[in-house]
């Protein structure tokens, strides 16, 4: 489903972000990527969603060579994956309903189907009554649930979540985690979640990949965080 082989990333400004990343994630897995700030987590996400191009090596997601996509083809590729960001990235001038519907409009789904599907995912994330609200009128946790609803609306095989709980308090974070687990279980969606919330990682145990200084330092199938004393 997701496969990185000997991936290096060096930014133009000279920052080395990733070294020789080898990674294989199968269909239906739920994987954490953890690591301190500057360890290359965000870079890895950007390589996976096509925002950055690897300096060396191959990145394959759902069988697509993401690193060699043309600029104009990147959005088309993104229809295969859902991405959730720490800062939600909702369209501020569109309502909750329109925000979710937008992801379906762009793939030319008929408006009847869109309406049905948007209600479905709004129900799934527990926001049935917020369809007409603007993102600015919602709490952070609610906005993140809208973003998740949008990300899964067209039934992507992979959901990438970049610190989805980064701006939320622990109770909200727990709610979001429960929601992601539900999506993983019910749809069989492969979920890749970047986080530095260790409490969360230890509570909801999953396969955990640790990054440090651009290297993979641990890949624990049974989960839980290994403390590195340095």
């Amino acid at each position, binding site marked *: 489903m997701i496969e990185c082989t000997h991936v290096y990333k060096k930014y133009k400004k000279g920052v080395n972000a990733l070294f020789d990343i080898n990674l294989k994630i199968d269909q239906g897995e739920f994987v954490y990527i953890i690591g301190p700030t500057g360890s290359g987590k965000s870079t890895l996400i950007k390589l996976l969603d096509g925002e950055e191009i690897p300096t060396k090596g191959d990145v394959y997601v759902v069988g697509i060579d993401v690193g060699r996509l043309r600029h104009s083809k990147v959005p088309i590729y993104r229809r295969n994956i859902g991405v959730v960001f720490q800062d939600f990235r909702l*369209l501020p*001038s569109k309502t909750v309903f329109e925000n979710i519907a937008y992801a379906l409009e762009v793939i030319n789904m008929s408006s009847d189907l869109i309406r049905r599907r948007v209600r479905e995912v709004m129900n799934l994330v527990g926001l049935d009554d917020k369809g007409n609200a603007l993102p600015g009128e919602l709490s952070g946790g609610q906005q993140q649930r809208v973003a998740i609803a949008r990300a899964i609306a*067209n039934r992507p095989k992979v959901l990438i979540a970049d610190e989805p709980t980064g701006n939320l308090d622990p109770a909200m974070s727990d709610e979001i985690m429960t929601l992601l687990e539900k999506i993983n279980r019910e749809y069989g969606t492969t979920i890749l979640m970047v986080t530095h919330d260790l409490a969360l990682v230890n509570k909801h145990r999953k396969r955990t990949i640790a990054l440090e200084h651009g290297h993979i330092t641990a890949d624990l199938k049974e989960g839980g965080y290994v403390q590195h004393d340095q």
Partner: protein
Amino acid sequence: MISRIWRPIRDGFKGFVRHGAMALSSSVAVTITLIIIGIFGVFMTNVSRFTEGLEQSVQISVKVDYDYEAASEEDRISLAIAGIPGVRAVNYSSKADEFEYYINSFNDEKMKEAYAPFRDDNPMHDAFYVEVSDGTQLENIAAQIEKIEGVEEVNFGGLSAVKMVAAMRSIRLGGTVLALALSLLAIFLIQNTIKLTIMARADEIAIMRNVGARNSYIRSPFVIEGMIIGIVGALIPIAMIFFGYRYLYEITGGYVISRMFSLIEPFPYIWQVCGVLLAISILVGLIGSFLSVNKYLRWKR
């Protein structure tokens, strides 16, 4: 299928309304520049029309020597003049015509009668009136005509005519250059304001790409919005020109200072000017938004 055509139009209008303040400020930039272009354009088209009229009214009169009045000789002279490069038309006027013309130039009946006896002993010459296609060649062509055998006298209004033609030329040329520069400046200004309205939505464009929207899908509503900005901005200038020019034409009676400087009739001229203004506004809105969106499409991969 229908939604593919309607969606960008609908979203374009929505965008215009939702970002009303920004969009309106762009429209105002369009309005101001179009007013300037409109007024200048009306001024220049009028000036260029009457300078062209003046320039074409300049002609060379050629008097034929009394000894060369035979039809065959005059045919030869006519052909020789017509053969000179830069000559647009040669009109013949017989000495009888010349005499009538001279007499009719008096308003006073007594004067006409006083000259009547000369009709049988006509002192006038047969003449050719030569129109030239390029006013600056006046002097040169006149000199060539003078060399033709049988030409008694050539008159082209002298240096003052040549100078006037040259002056008209530079007025027209200067005006055109100024108009072009002004239009370019306007387009630049408008494009910049539109860029500002779109820049405020760079994040929006990045989000659209994130959820899988094609570049063309993102671009089309913005382009429509730009065109709406242009059209809205053109409303006031078009109304101004439409009513203003007709009013101007009415109060001046159709000419300025003298008949020589007559204004262009309002119809269909106003429609043409308004059409051009509308076309400029739509085109500028379209190009401005297209370029700006493209820039922000590239902002994030």
